[in-house]
């Protein structure tokens, strides 16, 4: 929290998911007993991130791709590509936390459920980009992606394709600041 997540370039391997990936799939309720404000427990969320996604839907297009490969807490993937309504369901901030703890720096979805989007932005965990192109049908799990955050362009280094992302708009300054608290301090709304 409060760290800079909007680096000029975000690059890494894509993990591709479909539509309506809800918060129970992102982090099942049985793991919510961990307290994310305790660093040792924050790490645990990374281990269980995306653990309830049905296997056939995990790592599209082929599916049945494990999200964790070499490390049980941190994934080798850096960018999640998804379809519609990513993060629907519960208000649990544990959802963007789990993805952050697993090493995800950005998500690119068609659109988000609003509480997930707010949690990602206000908590400053990762950058929730949106793209009008249905990238979950165009990008394959394992493709190497590069997001130019200022230009709002996603380049698929594996295929050479390039996609325009939606501007971050009014939440841009909050993401840029690193979350709600950093933003409010910048604006003088709360004292340091």
């Amino acid at each position, binding site marked *: 929290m409060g760290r800079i997540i909007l680096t000029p370039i975000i690059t890494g391997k894509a993990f591709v998911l479909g539509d309506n990936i809800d918060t*129970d*799939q992102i982090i099942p309720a049985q793991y919510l007993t961990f307290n994310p404000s305790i660093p040792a427990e924050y790490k645990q969320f990374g281990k269980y991130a995306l653990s309830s996604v049905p296997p056939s839907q995990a790592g599209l297009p082929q599916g049945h791709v494990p999200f964790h490969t070499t490390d049980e807490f941190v994934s080798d993937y850096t960018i999640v590509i998804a379809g519609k*309504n990513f993060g629907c369901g519960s208000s649990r901030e544990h959802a963007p936390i789990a993805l952050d703890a697993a090493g995800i720096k950005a998500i690119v979805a068609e659109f988000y459920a609003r509480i997930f989007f707010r949690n990602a932005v206000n908590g400053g965990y990762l950058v929730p980009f949106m793209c009008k192109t249905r990238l979950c049908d165009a990008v394959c799990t394992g493709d190497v992606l590069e997001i130019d955050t200022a230009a709002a362009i996603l380049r698929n280094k594996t295929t050479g394709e390039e996609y325009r992302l939606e501007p971050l708009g009014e939440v841009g300054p909050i993401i840029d600041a690193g979350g709600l608290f950093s933003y409010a301090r910048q604006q003088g709304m709360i004292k340091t």
Partner: protein
Amino acid sequence: MTAMTLSEKILAKHAGKPFVRPGDNVWCNIDILMTHDVCGPGTIGVFHKQFGRDAKVWDKNKVVIIPDHYIFTADVMANRNVDTLRQFVREQNLPHFYDVGTDRYKGVCHIALPEEGHTRPGEILLGTDSHTCTAGAFGEFATGIGNTEAGFVLGTGKLWLSVPATMRFVFQGNLPPYLMAKDLILAVIGDIGCDGATYRAMEFDGDGVYALDMEERMTLCNMAIEAGGKNGIIAPDRVTLGYVDARNKSKIAYEVVKSDPGATFMVEKVYDVTKMQPVVAKPHSPDNKAPVREVQGTKLDRAYIGSCTGGKMGDFRGAAKILDGKTVRIDTFVVPATSEIARQLKTERIGSRTLEEIFLAAGAKMGEPSCAACLGGPADTFGRLNEPMSCISTTNRNFPGRMGHKQAQVYLASPLTVAASALTGTITDPRDFVG
């Protein structure tokens, strides 16, 4: 003055502005912040980290803490989380804490809030739970937030909110005896999809809504989030004010707000409730709607009657009417939402027997008031689906793994449909049992 909807008017007032329009981002003063045992410890952690270990909350009378999720479990971490709440309440001297193991213990936060007088028309209620939108039934703007936002509100009493465009759903006519609010909202979600109201307010209106009691109105608003809605809301009427005034122990003043004539609704859908029929949401999404008649006969392993949308007195009256004098064919779990409802089940009668006696005589298992298996939880949670079984449930959400096992099949339905199905062991239309 330009006309505004109910939700717009509440946000404008709390932002100190004469007018807001959909898409505006405004900083609002918050009337009530609610948190519970799952998101409370994280919220408290954010508050301490950002404002300091000795910081005080912005207004202790406006903070409500209701442990309800993982309560009757041996899970050490879950119990530690309730201890974290207790310590914070002691440090901050918070008056509105409903602790486990005391006479004040309530159960499910969304039902406890109105029972304890924390919901009032015209206010903004934020809670660290997506079903916080339940309280829109009382004519207030109520929505779910995360830990960081809740930590911010604890310290400042403010939060930025985007003004949602309002979708209006009008229900006309009187509800037939075989339908409940759950059927109405599942029909709406099925029609617009589980993302159909994303970033929108859902305002419910029409004589069919005003004929409902507060519990049924809460069920309607509760599931706005299952269509992606930011809030569900119903303008207050005499029924609302009767409930609120009877529970508003501190006599806190409130303002009755309604949508202006000529306010802009981005969508308006009209339903004739007399022509609607019992429905279920099939696995694995609340928008996977089917009329009960279409899926009747589907084999079930379990029935579950409980949660914020199925564990209220009206829900149990409906279920008991069907179960009275009969025996369930499958494991049936009954979980009152709150301790007040649990007590009432022991006193309210149909004929000579209390509702609790009717459930027990029918072979159902009774649980303690809490969220219980609605969201799975620790493995020893009452009613949790620990196997890949098929369950019909009065709860509000059925994404994969929601009630426990990832491969469990969960059908959402009204308490009438669940009770009828418990008697046959297959999905059953309540019209087979009630007129």
